[in-house]
C-alpha cells in the first residue's frame, strides 16, 4: 500500500514537471467565438396565424371559426400582433395533435402559430390550444384547455388570447376584462345618461341603471364585483355602490346637501377616496365602506379633486389648483404634504395611477386642445398620446399597457365615443358601443 502511494506521488511529480514543458511547446490558443452587440432593433407587430379551431365533433365547426376570429381580433387589436390572413395560409390544420408543418408557416412569415380545437357537447364548451414559435420550431409553453358553457364562448376566446399574449410578451393580457361606462344618447342639451357594462371590446353591453337621473364617473372595485358612481338622483351628487352581479345598490353615507363626487376604491376595496364640496371649497376625503367613518385628507382653500390610489395603496395622486391652475400632486394616502409632479404648460387633470405603478395617465388642456398623456411619478418623460377637441377620463387596462378614454366631437350635435391607445401612442382605435360612451373604467382581469 505504501509502495503504491509512493508511486502515485512520484507520478504526480512527473506530471508537474512535464506539463509546463508541453505547454510551452504547444501554446494552445483558446478558441474565441465572434462577438457582436445588437443594440438596435425594430418595433413592429409580430405576424401570427390563427387557423380555425379544429372541431372535434359534429356541429363544432362554426364555433371553431368564431373562436379563432375573436382570438385573432384580440391579438391584432392590441397593436403588438399582425394576423396573416387565412387566404395566405398554405398548410391547413385538420388535426389538433398532428405535427406542425413549420416550413409552410415559415414560408408565409408567420412567427407565431395558434392551433386550437373545440368540442361542443350539449351546453358545454371545451376549448384547447397550443402556441408554436415557428422559426424556432418549438412550442411556446404547454397546451391549455378551458371549459365553460356555450354562452361564455367569447370569454374562452379572450382567455386563449390572454395566454398567447402573455407567453409572447411576458406580461399578462387584458382581453378577458370588462368596462363600465356612461352610455349617452340624445343631443348635448338633453343628453340621457345611464350606466352600462360591456366586454373590453364593446361586446355584450348591458345597462345597469336607467336614464332618469344623471350618472357620472363609474369606477370598478379592485376585484370587479362592485361599481362606484355618482348620481344626481336626489338633486345633489351622491356616491352609490352597485353590486355588478345583483345590480343592487346603496348610497354611501353623507350629510344631506353635501356634494360628493369623483369616488375611487382603494386597492384593498375597503376604502373610498372622494371629493366633497363645501361652499366654494372642495377637499379630499376617505370613507371606510363598512363603517361609514370619514377622514379629511386636505384642507387647503383650493379645489382638490380626482384622487387615485397608487397600486400599493400608500399614496394618492390628485388634481389641485392651489398653484393657480390645475396641476397634479402626490401625497400620502392618509394626507399630509403634497408634492407637485406636473410642471408643463397647460392644465392637468383626472390623473390615474398605472396598475404597474410606474406611470400616471392624465388629461391635459393646452393651446385649445385636449390630450391624453402619461408621465412618470417624478413628472419626467411626459408623453402626449392623443390630441383632439376634447379627450378626457383615462382608465388603465389591467396590465397597464393600454389606456381607454372618451373623445367628444365639437358642436351641438357632437357625440362622445370611447377610444383606446397604447402607452407608446400607437394603435389609437375606437371602441364600438351601441350608443355614445364616456367615462370608462376598466375592470381587472376576470377570474
Amino acid at each position: 500500500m505504501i509502495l503504491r502511494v509512493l508511486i502515485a506521488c512520484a507520478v504526480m511529480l512527473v506530471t508537474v514537471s512535464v506539463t509546463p514543458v508541453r505547454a510551452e511547446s504547444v501554446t494552445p490558443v483558446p478558441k474565441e467565438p465572434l462577438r457582436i452587440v445588437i443594440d438596435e432593433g425594430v418595433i413592429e407587430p409580430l405576424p401570427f396565424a390563427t387557423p380555425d379551431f379544429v372541431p372535434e365533433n359534429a356541429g363544432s365547426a362554426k364555433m371553431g371559426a368564431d373562436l379563432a376570429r375573436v382570438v385573432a381580433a384580440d391579438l391584432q387589436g392590441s397593436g403588438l400582433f399582425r394576423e396573416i390572413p387565412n387566404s395566405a395560409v398554405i398548410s391547413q390544420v385538420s388535426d389538433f395533435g398532428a405535427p406542425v408543418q413549420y416550413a409552410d408557416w415559415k414560408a408565409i412569415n408567420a412567427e407565431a402559430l395558434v392551433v386550437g380545437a373545440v368540442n361542443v357537447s350539449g351546453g358545454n364548451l371545451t376549448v384547447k390550444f397550443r402556441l408554436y414559435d415557428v422559426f424556432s420550431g418549438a412550442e411556446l409553453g404547454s397546451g391549455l384547455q378551458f371549459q365553460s358553457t356555450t354562452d361564455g364562448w367569447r370569454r374562452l376566446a379572450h382567455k386563449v388570447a390572454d395566454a398567447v399574449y402573455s407567453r409572447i410578451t411576458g406580461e399578462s393580457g387584458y382581453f378577458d376584462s370588462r368596462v363600465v361606462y356612461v352610455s349617452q344618447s340624445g343631443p348635448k342639451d338633453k343628453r340621457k345618461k345611464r350606466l352600462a357594462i360591456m366586454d373590453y371590446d364593446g361586446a355584450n353591453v348591458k345597462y345597469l341603471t336607467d336614464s332618469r337621473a344623471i350618472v357620472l364617473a363609474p369606477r370598478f372595485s379592485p376585484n370587479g364585483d362592485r361599481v362606484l358612481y355618482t348620481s344626481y338622483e336626489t338633486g345633489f351628487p351622491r356616491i352609490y355602490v352597485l353590486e355588478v352581479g345583483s345590480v343592487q345598490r346603496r348610497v354611501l353615507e353623507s350629510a344631506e346637501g353635501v356634494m360628493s363626487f369623483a369616488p375611487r376604491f382603494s386597492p384593498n376595496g375597503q376604502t373610498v377616496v372622494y371629493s366633497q364640496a363645501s361652499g366654494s371649497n372642495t377637499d379630499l376625503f376617505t370613507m371606510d365602506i363598512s363603517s361609514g367613518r370619514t377622514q379629511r385628507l386636505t384642507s387647503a382653500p383650493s379645489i382638490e379633486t380626482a384622487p387615485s390610489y397608487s397600486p400599493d395603496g400608500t399614496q394618492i395622486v390628485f388634481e389641485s389648483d392651489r398653484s393657480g391652475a390645475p396641476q397634479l400632486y402626490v401625497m400620502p394616502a392618509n394626507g399630509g404634504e403634497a408634492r407637485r409632479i406636473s410642471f408643463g404648460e397647460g392644465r392637468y387633470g383626472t390623473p390615474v395611477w398605472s396598475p404597474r405603478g410606474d406611470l400616471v395617465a392624465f388629461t391635459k388642456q393646452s393651446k385649445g386642445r385636449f390630450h391624453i398623456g402619461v408621465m412618470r411619478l417624478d413628472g419626467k418623460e411626459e408623453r402626449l398620446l392623443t390630441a383632439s377637441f376634447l379627450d378626457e377620463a383615462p382608465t388603465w387596462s389591467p396590465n397597464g399597457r393600454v389606456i381607454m378614454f372618451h373623445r367628444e366631437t365639437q358642436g351641438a350635435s357632437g357625440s362622445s365615443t370611447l377610444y383606446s391607445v397604447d402607452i407608446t401612442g400607437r394603435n389609437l382605435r375606437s371602441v364600438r358601443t351601441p350608443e355614445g360612451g364616456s367615462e370608462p373604467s376598466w375592470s381587472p382581469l376576470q377570474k
Partner: protein
Amino acid sequence: MHVGQVISGSGHVVLIGWVLLGGLFQSDPLPIEATEVSVISGADFEALLAARQPATPETGPETETEIAQPAQPEGVEEPPVVPQVSEPVEDAAAPEVVATPPADDAPEVTELTAPPEAEVSDTPPEQQTPPEETAVLVPNQAEQAVPLPSDRVAPEPVAQPDPEAALDPVQQDAVVQSDTGETPQEPQEATAPEAAADQIVTEAEKPAAAPRTSVRPPARRPTRPAAAPAADPVVEPEPRTAESTSSDTDAAVQAALEAALNPPSDAPAAPSGPPMSAGEKDVLRVAVSSCWNVGSLSSDALKTTVTLGVSMTPDGKPVSGSVTLLGSEGGTAAAAKQAYETARRAIIRCGARGYDLPADKYEQWKEIEMTFNPERMRIK
C-alpha cells in the same frame, strides 16, 4: 424768301423774252398726207349693198329641234299598289279626370323682424401702414424632414419602397435577361427594405410639426463588446473503466498517469484565416438588427440584456438547435426568457437564407456570441 423771289423773277424774264423773241424761233408745219375720195349717192350705196348679200337667207338660232324621247326600259312594272291598311286604333281610354287639387293652405305669414341696421360711421377706417417690403431670403437649409408615420419603427428611417420591389433587408436592383449582354446574369426581382420610421409618432405629435430632435439616425460606431472573461475550457478526463479489482488508489494513479502523458488531444486551434473586419461584422449586426423585433416585449424584458451563443454552418446559416442563452443581465428570469426567445427568433429568421459572411473566414464566425441590449430601444 429769296428763293421765291428768284423763282418769280426768273419766270417773268422767261415769259417776257418768249413774248418778244417768240417769232424768231417759229418752225415749219408738219407735212399732211392727202387721200382722194369719191362721193356717191345714197341710192348707189344701197345698190352696192344689195349686190353683196347672198341669194338664200341663213337660218336663225331660234330654230327648235325636237329631241326624241328616250326609250322606256323594258320590264318595268307598274308601281305596286300599296294597300292602305289602317291599323285598328284602340279606343283610347278616357283620361282620368284629375280632381282639382285642393288649394294650398295659405302659408302662415310671419313677419320677420327687420335685420338690425349696420352701424355705419362716417369716419373712414384708418388705413394701416403696409409693412415695409423686405427681401425674402431663400433659406440655405432645406426644411427638416418630418418623421414618417409608419407601423414599423427601425433605427434608420426607410421610405416607402417601390411597390414592385419585394421586401428584403438588402436592397438590390432588378436584373433582367438581355440578349446583348455579354455576361449573362440570372434574372432577379428588385428588393428593398420595408418602410420604417425612426420613432413612434403619436397623434399629439403632428406629423407636420417639426421634429424636436434631428431625424438623422444616431451615429453608429462599431462597438466591440467588452471581452468577456474567457473561461478556460474545462477538459474533463474521459471516465475510464477501472478494473473492478483495483482499488481507488490504483484508479487515481492511473488517472494521473493518463493526464500527465496524454494531454487533451482536442486542444483548441487558433481560428484560421484573416480576422473579421469591422465592416464584415457590421453587415452581420445590421442583418440581425433588422429582425430583432422588440415591439412585443414587456417593459421588464426591455430592461434585460441577453447574450446568446449560436453555431453557424459554412453557408452562413445558424443551426437552430444550437442557439443557447449564455447569460442575462438587468431583469427577472421571466423577462430574460422573453428576451431570449425574441433574440432567438431574430437570429433564426434573418439567417434562414444565410448571413452574408466571408466564406474564407469561416473559422472566425463558426461560433458567434450575440449580445442583445435593448436599452436604446426603450426610448423609441
